């Protein structure tokens, strides 16, 4: 019944209204002309941000930590995914479910765990002093390490799911063929499975990177004010100092970074997909 353009347009209209009035227009207004601020003020603040040492440090930290998190996630998620996708064990399903389950669980709850582990009275500190490695427990919370651990925990499930579907669509027969021709397990993985699942790996990396540089809860809880990242800085501008020009400039930087990343990611994935 929906083969006529007019019916199609009618179906789209209410949803489109929500997206335009509840998303596109407010976002554009906030990014370029927040209330009481002229677009030129936003632009001035943006140029200042891209030259100012403190702001650049935040951008640099956000990108560096994001990159580290991405690399760690892919390096850990791909082996998990390939073990699970190639497993014949009946427990493989349960392990996959265990890796996917955290996606359903609140980020707040997931990040709290690191407070217990890395906090001043935490497990890690006790282990370090208990082993006599240090007189006093070192500061672990509010360090780059804490943020990286928290973000890796946050994004590993996503990376595992993406890598899993990428590896699962590589025909197992190709593994057999490579082994039969003389390739070891590792060689098979490296010359056959990795190249053929590369588009999926790129997608996973893009999702993790974009997620890491926009995440709020984890940097807020585990990084605090000493490891400010773009998202936590945006919140300070918006809610503490109420400097809307600065908030818009920060939001612009974040948005442009994420869109650029997604664009590059999907272009690379498409190029790799063509090769295969």
């Amino acid at each position, binding site marked *: 019944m929906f083969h006529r353009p007019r019916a199609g347009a009618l179906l789209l209209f209410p949803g489109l209204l929500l997206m335009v009035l509840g998303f596109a227009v407010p976002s554009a207004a906030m990014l370029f002309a927040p209330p009481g601020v002229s677009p030129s003020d936003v632009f001035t603040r943006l140029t200042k941000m891209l030259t100012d040492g403190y702001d650049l440090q935040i951008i640099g930290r956000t990108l560096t930590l994001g990159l580290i998190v991405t690399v760690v996630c892919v390096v850990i998620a791909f082996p998990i995914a390939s073990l699970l996708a190639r497993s014949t064990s009946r427990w493989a399903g349960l392990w996959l479910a265990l890796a996917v389950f955290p996606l359903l669980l609140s980020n707040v709850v997931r990040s709290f765990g690191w407070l217990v582990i890395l906090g001043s009275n935490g497990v890690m500190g006790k282990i370090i002093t208990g082993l006599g490695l240090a007189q006093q427990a070192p500061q672990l919370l509010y360090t780059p390490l804490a943020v990286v651990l928290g973000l890796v925990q946050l994004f590993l499930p996503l990376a595992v799911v993406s890598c899993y579907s990428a590896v699962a669509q590589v025909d197992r027969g*190709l593994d057999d063929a490579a082994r039969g021709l003389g390739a070891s397990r590792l*060689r098979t993985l490296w010359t056959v499975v990795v190249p*053929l699942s590369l588009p999926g790996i790129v997608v996973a990396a893009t999702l993790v990177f974009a997620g890491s540089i926009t995440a709020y809860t984890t940097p807020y809880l585990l990084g605090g004010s000493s490891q400010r990242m773009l998202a936590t800085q945006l919140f300070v501008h918006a809610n503490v100092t109420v400097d809307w020009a600065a908030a818009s400039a920060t939001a612009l930087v974040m948005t442009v970074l994420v869109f650029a990343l997604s664009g590059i990611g999907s272009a690379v994935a498409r190029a790799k997909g063509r090769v295969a």
Partner: protein
Amino acid sequence: MTAAAQFIDVSRTFGDFTAVGSLNLDIPEGRITTLLGPSGCGKTTTLRMLAGYTAPSSGTIRIAGEDATRLPPEKRNLGMVFQSYALFPHMSVADNVGYGLKLRRIPAAERRSRVAEALDLVGLGHLAAQRPRKLSGGQQQRVALARAIAIRPSLLLLDEPLSNLDARLRVQMRAEIRRIQAETGLTVVLVTHDQDEALEMSDVMVLMRAGHVMQSGSPAEVFPRPANRFVAEFLGYENFVPASLSASDGATTLTVRPEHLEVVQGEAPDGARLALPATVTGIAYRGVDRHLTLSAPRGEGEDDVTLIATVRADHSRADWRPGDRVTVSARPEHVVELAD
């Protein structure tokens, strides 16, 4: 004849299911051995155990006299052609064929010449730079063959290699594989469910059912003398007559192929081993042949025996019609006695 590979008391179970039970089999060197049987008979499991993809539950597998039971596939130096061909989609045809040579650290120059040689052998030298997915099914099949041969394997294993090709190409490839085997002198093990393929291609055919060998031998030995009812049925013997209807000792059943039954009105020809009165119950027209279904009475209170005969149309007389009373007979050399 020396054995290129041997199965000694090999079995493989999956949970409660016995895929292969206590298999003893020698694969003769320099010949084509065919593992033939219906799906689920254990032929593919047997091949995968030989290749090293499936570990036997018990028993020993020897390749070239050496115990290879626990050897991983990459250490066996066997060339396997998969049913799906399993060509690497991200590599060119030449890179696919050269993959195994690269792993063997063959220098680039020699590698190139051996890739070219293998591709020439299958007649695809001109497609070396193509990606596999641009190729037709038949061409992909040849690439898979070249890739397996290029590593100079001690055995060439073919898992239902022709089943994804259309009928005409399949017949053509049978001759092609025979030619390649003759030129290279390779030992070949071929898995198939197609009796025609097995008859045409094998030096030795091994008929399997439910994980056991039912009969093995050359096509010339096996085809005219099936050892049991399963082999007879699989090879297209469709008529099974209780031995009580014809004097014979030892056997319980006699079997004859449909094309070896003679159907006449009146007396059976002299020297017939079997001669049964019967009634025509059905006729199917197959061009020059007539496919007759017949019913022969067995005796009081017992069901009639149904017979199937393929006979040439005889234009000197009227065609067969249902209800015709006839005599069905077979010459002694066409009647096989079965114990089961």
